[in-house]
């Protein structure tokens, strides 16, 4: 029974980490769209390349933070949460 409980904990943590990483898809698509529009803008006005690059860099960094939040949650769920939850379970059993 205890093995089953530990298995459920590990499985749920892995599942949760996988679900969290779905959020990592968004920034990639968003950044791709942003750079496509930036290319268009620079093609129309080549003299504004520096301003467009600056704005795009900042926009990409902001978009990427969303992915980083998901990544941090996934890392915590994979590496830290299982140990903590198993400890809690063991303490409850004793």
């Amino acid at each position, binding site marked *: 029974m205890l093995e089953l409980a530990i298995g459920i904990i590990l499985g749920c943590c892995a599942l949760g980490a996988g679900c969290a990483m779905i959020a990592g898809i968004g920034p990639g698509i968003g950044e*791709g*769209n942003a750079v496509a529009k930036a*290319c268009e803008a620079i093609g129309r006005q080549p003299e504004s390349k520096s301003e467009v690059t600056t704005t795009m*860099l900042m926009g*990409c960094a902001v978009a*990427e933070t969303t992915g*980083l939040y998901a990544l941090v949650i996934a890392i915590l769920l994979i590496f830290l949460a299982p140990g903590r939850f198993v400890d809690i379970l063991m303490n409850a059993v004793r």
Partner: protein
Amino acid sequence: MKLDKTVRYETLYITLWVIVCSALLESVFLIIGKWDHTVLTGNVLGAAAAAANFLLMGVTVQKAVLMDKKRAASYLKISQSLRMLLIFAVAGVGVLLPYFNTVAVLVPLFFPRIAILFRPLFGKKKDRDESV
């Protein structure tokens, strides 16, 4: 490859902010009495990863703006995935090895976001005028 002037300036700005925020993080650990050498090593690892991530993104953007639309979009998507893997590897090392404090590794990854948040206040005067 030569770095664009804009990318160099922005990376320097972000790196400076990451250093300032790292100092603040260290002082918070000192104040709460939980500082040890793992906090310093973890902070250095996390801050270096955050700055390197921004620099790599800058290099990618610098190359991508010279490409055609479709190629640029896919180039940035691939770059984003690879950078995410890099951050995952760094954070994994930071969490698994006992030489690094977990919080001190993970928190600096968000320092560039804080730098961008305060950019309208501390950015160039020209930027401020444009944002008004």
